[in-house]
C-alpha cells in the first residue's frame, strides 16, 4: 500500500513538473517542481529525506533529458541535504526565511550544475547560468516552496532540533 502511495506521489510530481514546464517556451527558465519538492522535503524532513528526494527526482529529469545523467540528481541531492541541514539551524516558522533559503539554494544549485557540466566539457558558464537560470528559478521557488512548506508543516509537523532531528508533531497549528 505504501509503495502505491509513493508511486502515485511520484507520477503526480512528474506530471506537475511537466505541466509547469510546458507553460514556458523551450530553452527559457521555468519553475522546477522537482527542485521545489526537494527543498521542501529537506526543510520538513531533514537532510537524508531531502537528499533521497533530490536523487530520485533529479535522476528522473536526467534520464528524460538524456545528457549528463547523474549531475542533476547529484546537485539536487546536495540542495536537498543542505535544506535539511539549514532547517535544523534557522528559525523555520518564519516563511520569509524559508523563501530566502529557497532562493539561496536554487542559486547554489544553478552554480553547482553549470560548474559540474563545465568540468565535463559542456560549455556552460556558471556566472551566466546563475543569472539566466538560477535567479529566475530561485524567484519561482522562493514563492512556491513557502506555500508547499506551510501546507506540509500543517500536515506533517516539523523536525525537532532538540531531539536530534526527530519528527515533532505540531497538531495542525501554524504558528508563524
Amino acid at each position, binding site marked *: 500500500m505504501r509503495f502505491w502511495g509513493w508511486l502515485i506521489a511520484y*507520477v503526480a510530481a*512528474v*506530471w*506537475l*513538473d*511537466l*505541466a*509547469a*514546464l*510546458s*507553460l*514556458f*517556451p*523551450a*530553452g*527559457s*527558465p*521555468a519553475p*522546477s517542481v522537482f527542485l521545489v519538492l526537494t527543498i521542501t522535503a529537506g526543510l520538513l524532513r531533514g537532510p*537524508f529525506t531531502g*537528499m533521497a528526494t533530490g*536523487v530520485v527526482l533529479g*535522476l*528522473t*529529469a*536526467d*534520464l*528524460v*533529458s*538524456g*545528457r*549528463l*545523467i*547523474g*549531475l*542533476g*540528481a*547529484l546537485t539536487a*541531492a546536495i540542495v536537498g*541535504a543542505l535544506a535539511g541541514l539549514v532547517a535544523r539551524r534557522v528559525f523555520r516558522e518564519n516563511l520569509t526565511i524559508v523563501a530566502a533559503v529557497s532562493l539561496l539554494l536554487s542559486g547554489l544549485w544553478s552554480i553547482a*550544475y*553549470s560548474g*559540474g*557540466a563545465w568540468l*565535463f*566539457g*559542456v*560549455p*556552460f*558558464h556558471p556566472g*551566466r*547560468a546563475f543569472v*539566466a*537560470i538560477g535567479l529566475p*528559478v530561485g524567484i519561482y521557488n522562493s514563492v512556491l516552496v513557502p506555500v508547499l512548506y506551510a501546507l506540509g508543516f500543517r500536515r506533517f509537523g516539523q523536525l525537532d532540533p532538540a531531539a536530534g532531528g526527530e519528527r515533532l508533531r505540531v497538531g495542525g497549528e501554524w504558528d508563524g
Partner: protein
Amino acid sequence: MTAWTRHRHTLLGVLAVVVLVAMAGLTAYFREDISAVERRVLEALSPVQRAATETGRSIRAFWVSLGELRHLHEENSHLRAQVEELLGKAPRLDDLEQENARLRAMLAFAPPAEFEALAARVIGRSMSNWFSTVEIDKGSTDGVTVNTVVVTQRGLVGRVVRVTGRTATVLLLTDPQSGVGAVVIRSREPGVVLGTTSFEDTCAMRLFSRDADVVRGDAVLTSGLGDVFPSGLHIGQVVETSRSDQGLLVTATVSPAVDFGRLEEVFVLCPRGG
C-alpha cells in the same frame, strides 16, 4: 551497533556521489544509442508528458482568454453577459483557429528534393532548465533516426539526438551543444551557427574569415557542410555583429527564423528511400 549501522547514511551518500559522477561523465555528450533504462523511462513518461503538455496549453489558452475578457469588460460593459457566455468556448476555438492556420501554412511547405517531410507534433519540452530540446510524437517506428533534421515552414528547428519507438528528442538550434554549418546568403561567407551558453533565444554565428562581410539584416542558411544538415535551409537573420579575441574572430548574433516559444507542429526530414 555495527559500523554499517553507524555510518550507513555517509556510506550511501559517498556511493551515490561516485555512481552519479561516473554516469554524468559517461553521458556528457550525445550517444548513438540510448540505454534500455532511458528507453523505458521515456516510453513510460511519454503519455504523462503528452497529458501534462496539453494541460499546460489549456492553462495558457485560458489565461489569454482571461486577459481578453478583462479588456472587453473595461471597454464594453454592456457586452459582459455575452462575453461570459462565450468564455467557455473561446479558448478552445482560438486554439483550433490557430492550429488551422498553422496546418494550412504547413501544407504549403515543400521539403528539399531528397527528403520526405513527416509531420510531427511537439509533445513537450525538455524536463530540465539546462537544455533546449523538445520531444516529438514520431519515433523509430515512423522512420526517424538520430541526426534526422527537423524544420518548420519558417526554417530550421534542429536535429534529432535521441529516438525511442514512438518519440524523439530534438536538439534545438539554441542549445549550447548545437552547431550547424551555415552561410550568409548575400556574401556567401561561411561559418558555424552555435547555440549560446548564455541561455538566450538567439544563436551565435562564428565566421571563418576575419574580414567576413556580414551586416545586420543578412539572411543565414545552412551550408550543407557536414553530414547532418542539407544546404539551403533558412536558419535566421543577423541582428548584431561583433569582433572578439583581439579582433581575430567575427561573430554574428542570429535571431532564428523559427519561434521556439510557439513550436507545436514540425516536419521531420526523412531521406527518400531511406
